[in-house]
Structures are given as C-alpha cells and as structure tokens.
C-alpha cells in the first residue's frame, strides 16, 4: 500500500473507511513509522478539536429544553446571559408557524379538556355540552357516556395521539411501577384508566402555581413548538388527572425525577440520537437491548469518549431510565473479531457490549444477564 494521504487517514480515524482498505491501512501503519506518526498527530488534532466543540456543548443542551415553563423555573442553569432576558412568548408565537401549528393542536386538546370538565356529572351546563360531545368524532368520555368503557379513556388523548401515540402507551414494567405509585387510584375518574407511566410523568406538567386552567384558552400557547407541553396536558386527562386536581399533578411531578429527554441525552453524552435502522447499520446486526425494559433513547457516542471502546468508531448507546431517575447505558460497538473485550465488557459476536451507569454493580450484573 502507498503512503496514505491525510484524507485517507482522516477517514480511517473517523471509522469511515471501507473495511478492506482499513485492513490494508492497519497493516501499513504497523510497518511505517512515519505514517503512524502522522496518524497519531491527526488523531490528536481531531481529539482536541472535538474537545473544543464539546466545550460549547456544555451550554448547548440547555438551549434545547423543550418547555418555556422549565426555562423560567431554572434560569440559573443557563450558560449565557441571553437566557436571562424575559421570555417573550407572544413574540415567538407570532414569528413561528411551527409554533402556530403545534399550538392549534394544543388548543384542541385544551378545548376537549374544557368540554370534559364542564360535562362531569352534576356540573351545570351538562345538557348543552352533551350536545357538543354527541357531535364530536370521539364520543368516549367515560364520566359522561354510560356505554363507554375503560378502553375509551383515551378519548381526550386522541387529540394528542397523532403526536405521541407510542410514547404514551408503552412503558417497561419497571418504569411503569413508579408511575403507578404516583397515580393512586383514589378517584373515580382515574380508577379505570391506564396507569400513569414515567414517560407520561416526564412531560413537563406545570407546577400548581403555573397550572393552566383548561377553561381559559388564553393559556393555550403552552410551549407551542415544544411538543411535550400539549402531550402533557393530554396525558393528564388520559391518566385521570384533571385541572381540578393540581395536588395530584404536583404529586406526580414530585415523584417523578425531572428528566427531560434532552437532559437525558446530554447526560448520556449522545452526539446524536438514532433510530433502529441506523443502529443496525452501525452494528452490522440487531441492536442489543435489556429484556423487559423499554429504552429511553438510542444514540451515538464518539468512541474516544467511551472507556474500552475503539476510539475511531462511534459507540451505539442504549439509554435506560430507572424508576428513581437513575440512568444506565448499554453500550455496543462493532469491533474486530480478533479483539478481546475490554475490562467490564463482553462480546456478542463481533459486537462489544458494556452495561454501566448509576446502578449498583449487583443490579448491573443482574441486568446484564437479561441483555438479548
């Protein structure tokens, strides 16, 4: 093989080189000290450049926090003085057609909630509102219509279902536990409904003092483009939590650690989130997961940031969130078959796996046995 140029070496460093060429280059670098030194120098520069960009990242995730409410709640976490300026919600609202689009959806959710609220048994205006409901496309509100069974409890959530159907419906058994505890079956409205999941609890439900009144459309632009807020409102209905139950909302929030997806993404050091297809592509096979647990997200972490990983390739990181908000990760990286696994890791074919995180070693060992 001829001496590689910087382009080829950079592709090799970034794990972008064709495997056949990479093998040839490996052999060449093992023999040619000059090229080896150049590769080392390029790697050092790449590492330093990535490190510099990561320094900017220290402030960036906060930018992506999806809720203006949470922005106001935690100004001290902001990295830049810019964020200390008053948040001009209406200016955003006017500027962004995306916000308008999501805001319309939120309005529908809130309007549906207001209708349900007015139609609770024994409240005034029941008759008039029943007529409205009878024309609605989803006539399933349990407290009103005698034919509707528990399975119809998602009637109000239906306005939201287009946005996050699976996220609200699915939850791992372990994760669901905490949510179930948070939603005590002490009210008729909530008894027959789906148990609250942590995914639902994770949505930024406003604190009692900020709790929007669902009868007042003036508060509808609740984080319009920030998809979590309308979802949270709908989740409150689907879990039997209404605007008249701010205490339960607060309880739910208090028992659920404040872990926004982007905060989790930041903590997990993900450079990007990926889907299953891309994970399969990275691994050359199926993604490994912990049986019985629902991953919070899947993403890529630069190999150089992961102990024991091949620094030239990204690591696929499956992120899990435990009942108590602790995160743990199942790292997986396709490596050369000849390599022996790094300490704390094990091999599944040519994929190196490592489970780590904020859990005790015993817990991690138990979970490792459930990795499929």
């Amino acid at each position, binding site marked *: 093989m001829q001496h590689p140029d910087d382009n080829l070496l950079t592709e090799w460093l970034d794990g972008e080189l064709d495997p056949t060429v990479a093998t040839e280059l490996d052999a060449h670098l093992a023999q040619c000290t000059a090229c080896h030194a150049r590769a080392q120098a390029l790697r050092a520069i790449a590492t330093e450049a990535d490190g510099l960009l990561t320094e900017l*990242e220290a402030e960036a995730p906060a930018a992506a926090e999806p809720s203006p409410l949470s922005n106001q709640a935690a100004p001290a976490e902001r990295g830049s003085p810019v964020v200390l300026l008053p948040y001009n919600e209406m200016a955003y609202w006017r500027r962004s057609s995306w916000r308008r689009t999501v805001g319309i959806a939120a309005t529908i959710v809130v309007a549906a909630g207001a209708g349900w609220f007015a139609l609770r048994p024994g409240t005034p205006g029941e008759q008039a509102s029943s007529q409205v409901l009878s024309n609605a496309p989803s006539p399933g509100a349990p407290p009103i219509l005698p034919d509707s069974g528990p399975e119809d409890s998602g009637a109000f959530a239906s306005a939201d279902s287009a946005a996050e159907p699976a996220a609200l419906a699915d939850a791992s058994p372990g994760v669901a536990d905490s949510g179930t505890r948070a939603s005590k079956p002490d009210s008729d409205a909530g008894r027959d409904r789906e148990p609250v999941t942590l995914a639902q609890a994770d949505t930024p439900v406003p604190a009692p003092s900020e709790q929007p009144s669902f009868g007042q459309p003036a508060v509808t632009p609740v984080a319009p483009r920030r998809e979590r807020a309308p979802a949270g409102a709908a989740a409150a209905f689907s879990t039997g939590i209404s605007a008249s139950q701010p205490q339960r909302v607060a309880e739910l929030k208090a028992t659920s650690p404040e872990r926004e997806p982007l905060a989790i993404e930041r903590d997990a050091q993900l450079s*990007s989130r990926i889907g299953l297809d891309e994970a399969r592509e990275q691994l050359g096979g199926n993604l490994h997961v912990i049986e019985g647990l629902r991953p919070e997200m899947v993403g890529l972490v630069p190999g150089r940031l992961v102990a024991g990983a091949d620094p030239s390739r990204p690591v696929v990181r499956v992120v899990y969130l435990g009942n108590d908000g602790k995160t743990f990760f199942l790292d997986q990286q396709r490596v050369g078959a000849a390599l022996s696994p790094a300490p704390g890791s094990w091999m599944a074919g040519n994929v190196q796996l490592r489970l780590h995180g904020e859990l005790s070693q015993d817990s991690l060992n138990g979970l490792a046995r459930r990795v499929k």
Partner: protein
Amino acid sequence: MTEDTGRLFEQYYGSLVRMLWRRTGDRDRAEELAQETFARAVEAPPNNPRPWLFAVALNLVREDARRANRQGRRLQLLKAETPTTAPAADAEFERRERQAAVRAALALLNERDREALLLKAEGFSYDEIASSLGLARGAVGTTLARARKRLVEAFHAGESRRHAAS
C-alpha cells in the same frame, strides 16, 4: 413524507438546536432557526430528513448572518457573549472565556470547514456531510482534517494573545 414530522422533531430538534447554538452563539436565535427549519419540513416533507434539516438550518444561518451584518446585530450577539450579570465565580468565568475563545476560533474558519465540523460533531456520517454541504464524498475527510487543524491552531493563537494581554 417518509417520517412523521413529530417523530422528526423528537429525534432531531435537540441536535439541531445544539448545532445552531454552536454555530450562532445565540440560544434564542438557534431555537428560532430550528423551529423555522421544522416549519419548512412541515410544508415540504423531506425524503432524507437529517441531512435536509441540517442543510436547511445552515442555509437559514447564512441568510441570518447576512441580514445581521446589514443590521449590525452582531454587536448585540457579542455583547450577549459577555457576562453582564452578577460576577461569576472564577471557574465559571474561565469556562465562559474558553467558550468565547472556541467560538472566536470557529468564526475564523471558512463556512464550509465550520459547517463540516459542526455536522461531524452531531454524529453525521461522511455521506450525510457530503449530502448536506454539497461536497463530494471523497472531499469530506480532507475538509474535516483541514477544519480541525485550523480550529485548533486558531484557538491556540487566540489563547496566546489572551494570555499575553492579561
């Protein structure tokens, strides 16, 4: 539309804002640009969403920068970079100084090098970088190597000046 826009938002919004914030240094502007990008995705759903979203976002940044130059808004952005609130602790002050230095070094790169670096930092593959920036795939490695080298050199030069001045 190959993917639901909501799912795209969920999947890429954070990454897009992060990239835009690195690029602009203005959190609010980064969010606005990200939202504008998604608004365009709603109007014309892309087939290959990730490169499309980031390419559109970078185009918006370029347009925004031209507009900002005309309006002299850069001065405001630079002002926003400077801590003007209560005096930060030394460590925090130092962190902000370094971030300003990194951002200044990044600003010295040419547009293509800077964007290639930012996309790579968001986990883009070479194919995606090439697609987003309109580069030949074979030129991505060279571009990245050059961009990294210039970034590091510009940063060290800036740090030397800073230490010499202090």
